[in-house]
């Protein structure tokens, strides 16, 4: 099995890649780790005429701290996100998610930027990055835009980026003391993709009260959805087991998932409440004042 014929250019800089994107328009496609794109091309679901490789651009991978954020280069592979001391220290929920993508070989090639830009509704990273209130830096010849996660995943396999932009980095605010983060996933038993998953960020005051909560659920729609009713239920209240259970029970409120061959809509909505609770409990367990 092999893709339809295409041309290939190894970009040497983001600027060169932007020029190539402009030149080739809809016939061009950016290549990062290729672990979504190449399988799609082998199945002839995608047949771009020109691949523009970002893997040859220096400086697009790596993780650093800047101005209260972790800055993760778009070409950073999942294995490096999962193993990063900075990620594990500041936002272990992101390490949770990066470590359950695909399998070891996939995590050695697949990139955070590729996953975000591909916006697969069954992907892990969009969910946890929404819970973490990440933002995405989209560069074009006109400059750069910083797009917040809440308005980024606009539809199935569709983001708020335009065709002439390249995702260069992911910016994640480092949570304040007393905040815990976690990700919990029900994987499809064969593919490992998300059936339903939950990302949670919980800030707990020393008194035990919930100071802030961001909960995102995957598998219920075209992209991650915020569990707003759950967040409101938690906000400002003591984080008792009863409150957590009551809040998690609202995790699928307002969502309208589709039935599919593996799971019915009702089942997904039910499982969302279970995985929201798992993620909230794990996040609280990691919150240190």
């Amino acid at each position, binding site marked *: 099995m092999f893709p339809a014929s295409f041309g290939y250019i190894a970009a040497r800089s983001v600027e060169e890649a932007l020029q190539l994107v402009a030149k080739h328009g809809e016939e061009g496609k950016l290549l990062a780790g290729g672990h979504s794109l190449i399988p799609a091309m082998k199945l002839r679901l995608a047949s771009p005429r020109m691949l523009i490789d970002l893997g040859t651009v220096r400086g697009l991978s790596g993780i650093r701290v800047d101005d209260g954020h972790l800055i993760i280069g778009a070409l950073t592979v999942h294995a490096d996100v999962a193993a990063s001391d900075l990620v594990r220290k500041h936002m272990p929920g992101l390490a949770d998610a990066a470590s359950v993508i695909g399998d070891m070989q996939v995590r050695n*090639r697949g990139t955070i930027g590729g996953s975000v830009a591909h916006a697969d509704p069954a992907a892990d990273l969009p969910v946890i990055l929404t819970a973490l209130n990440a933002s995405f830096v989209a560069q074009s010849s006109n400059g750069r835009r910083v797009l917040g996660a809440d308005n980024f995943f606009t539809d199935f396999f569709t983001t708020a980026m335009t065709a002439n932009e390249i995702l260069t980095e992911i910016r994640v605010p480092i949570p304040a003391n007393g905040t815990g983060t976690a990700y919990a996933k029900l994987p499809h038993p064969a593919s490992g993709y998300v059936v339903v998953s939950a990302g949670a960020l919980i800030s707990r005051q020393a008194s035990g009260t919930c100071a802030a909560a961001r909960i995102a659920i995957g598998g219920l729609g075209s992209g991650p959805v915020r569990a707003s009713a759950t967040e409101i239920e938690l906000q400002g209240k003591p984080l008792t087991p009863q409150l957590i259970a009551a809040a998690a029970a609202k995790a699928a409120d307002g969502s309208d998932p589709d039935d599919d061959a593996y799971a019915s809509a009702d089942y997904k909505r039910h499982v969302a409440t279970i995985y929201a609770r798992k993620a909230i409990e794990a996040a609280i367990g990691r919150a240190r004042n």
Partner: protein
Amino acid sequence: MTAEAEYAAVPISVTVNGVKHDAVVEPRTLLVFFLRDSLGLTGTHVGCDTSQCGACTVHLNGRAVKSCTVLAVQANGAQVRTIEGLANGDHFHPVQQGFHEKHGLQCGYCTPGMIMTAVHLLESQPNPSDDEIKHALEGNLCRCTGYVNIVESIKWASEKMRKS
């Protein structure tokens, strides 16, 4: 631009098992077919061809990857290690020896991929637990031996490598 020029073959230079190979490849050539068809290194197998089974696992710059999901052009300038590059002359690599000692194979089809994944695991984590071994093998499917002896083989190799 003519279609011919647009799909022009690309020169690459890849070091495989320590030997540098210069070649000109069609961009759609998958790394596994470059290794097998152009270099004759048929120890790397094509199993599912959909990045599920791991039979095609090789090391790219020191990391286990599925070579059916990597383009040969993406390996330009890289170091590749395949199953053929593990033994030192007549001496098996400890992981190869472990699969022999502990009967970690039956038909052998998945074995090169299993071994390359295990070598990467033990190079990054010399003393993994059973659970860590099983987790690392998540992307390698065996359809005959079962995994019990494969895990035993890797534990045997882990011990051998730590003693040497």
